[in-house]
């Protein structure tokens, strides 16, 4: 059987599996399908026992194929969705300071949220956006949304829709233009931030739907950053948090909190230590911690078990590979050989 045929068979199996899962989900049959805690522990133990078998095979000089590694990752990510294991989520100092900065804001404060990411980073950043917006709307903070990435305002709309589905928020009957505004995307990267420092309207003469800036009640008196109480940047790269720090914080003295992908977060830690960033949410773990603080359990918290499993599996493979490498090196150095 040729490789192309094998790939087509696997692709067909995966497609059929996805359709079945989707059908079960759409008809509500997936709801409530959970392993018991005991069963979850047994399944986890089986996964890790099979990793011991992989270790033994590797020690015997038989490296397993990459497709099997892929299978382990797929199992490690998907099975925890059905497990009933709870993990305690600890709040890190950088998430706590970010939350404290928000909690200090009096009712009616204006929060500018910059959505500088696109769908590939949404699994990490969208939960942060949703819990931030839920917090703002629940605490009567006014939200101004914008994006330096073309897809940013669309991600913002998705997050706002998710927040609006909450009963407590829906009952407030919040109005577009009064309680929140989506200014849309503007090209120009850090130059957009720089121009916003003198006049927001120069960069956003209309909102994302073409309504004139002056007709939006919320931003009628917002001319520059001095009329904004808190800026929150959700970023997946360039332009993003670093540009907001370099222009908005350093030149205009804004209070900035950031939510970053796990890959980008380490680059922002120097700004956190220097006080240029109030706080930072790093990756899905940051999102889960923020959800815990704000009291809205969302995707960040739900996916933490998958994240834990995926990390454990990657680490197991690193360990197995290195144990085999060290033993092999010793054998080669051995005088008997």
């Amino acid at each position, binding site marked *: 059987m040729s490789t192309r045929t094998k790939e087509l068979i696997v692709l067909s199996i995966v497609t059929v599996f996805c359709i079945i899962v989707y059908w079960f989900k759409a008809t509500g049959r997936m709801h409530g399908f959970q392993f018991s805690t005991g069963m979850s522990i047994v399944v986890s133990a089986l996964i890790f026992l099979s990793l011991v078998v992989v270790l033994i095979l590797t020690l015997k000089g038989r*490296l*397993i194929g*990459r497709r099997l*590694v*892929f299978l*382990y*990752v*797929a199992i490690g*990510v998907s099975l925890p969705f059905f497990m009933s294991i709870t*993990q*305690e*989520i*600890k709040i*890190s100092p950088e998430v706590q300071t970010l939350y404290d900065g928000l909690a200090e804001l009096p009712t009616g404060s204006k929060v500018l949220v910059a959505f500088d990411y*696109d*769908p*590939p*980073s*949404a*699994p990490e950043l969208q939960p942060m956006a949703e819990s931030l917006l839920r917090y703002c709307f629940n605490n009567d903070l006014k939200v101004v949304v914008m994006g330096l990435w073309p897809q940013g*305002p*669309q991600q913002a*709309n*998705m997050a706002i*829709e998710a927040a609006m589905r909450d009963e407590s928020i829906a009952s407030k009957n919040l109005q577009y233009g009064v309680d929140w505004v989506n200014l849309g995307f503007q*090209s*120009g*990267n850090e*130059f*957009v931030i*720089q*121009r916003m420092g*003198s006049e927001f309207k*120069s*960069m956003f003469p209309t909102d*994302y*739907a073409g309504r004139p800036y002056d007709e939006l009640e919320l931003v009628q008196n917002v001319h520059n950053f001095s009329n904004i109480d808190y800026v929150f940047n959700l970023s997946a790269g360039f332009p993003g948090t670093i540009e907001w720090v370099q222009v908005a914080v350093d030149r205009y003295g804004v209070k900035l909190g950031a939510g970053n992908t*796990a890959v980008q977060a*380490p*680059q922002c*830690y*120097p700004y956190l*230590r220097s006080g240029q960033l109030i706080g930072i949410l*790093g*990756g899905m*773990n940051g999102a889960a911690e923020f959800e815990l603080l704000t009291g809205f359990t969302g995707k960040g918290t739900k996916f*933490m078990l998958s*994240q*834990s499993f*995926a*990390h454990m*599996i*990657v*680490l197991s*493979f*690193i360990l*197995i*590979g*290195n144990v085999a*490498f060290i033993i092999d090196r010793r054998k080669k150095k051995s005088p008997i050989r």
Partner: protein
Amino acid sequence: MRREIPLFITGVVGIVFVLQYFIPHFPFNKMNAWFSDWFSIVQACAIWLGVLNLLKISFQNIGRRKDDWGYAIVIVVSFLAISIVGFAEGEAFRDSGTSFTWLYDYIYTPLSSSMFAILAFFVASASYRAFRARNFEATLLLLAAFFVMLGRVPIGDVLTSFMPDQLQLSSLATWIMNFPQTAGQRAIMIGIALGIVSTSLRIILGVERSHLGGGD
């Protein structure tokens, strides 16, 4: 003139941007606003240039039946489909319930998220086959990765729950991120910043001309 005019524009704009940072008053503040607006306009045009270039290359690949020319058809069809739907729905094309939003939410978002998610599989495979403690530096990197990866997920603390709080893996990961990692990042950032300053000066003063094309 094809080289002199871009060099002149680069020089003037570069010097104005440097001056306005230290002298934010007339005329530099006005010139800064003017050039910033122009930057946005030029970048918006660059997006169109990118789109047209992508289409041109895709059509060429289809016409010449180059390797994987089928993907070029997918690019062209997807581009045309989403553009036609977007333009047909007018200014409110991004509103909830529009066909454009449906395409964005149920086609574009899952597909691009999946592309990114594939990284997890390759990272696992690569770490099994290539991430080895071959020397001291690689061992340090490996140990840091080990503690940060475990400390950044709740399972790390579950595994070290018998230890005092400050010795648990999350505390260790926070310490690594706040001190050794930040120190390393700062060193890299300072190095990059010095490189940017020197390269920018060379470009503004017209010493560096490679970006204009045609050698030297």
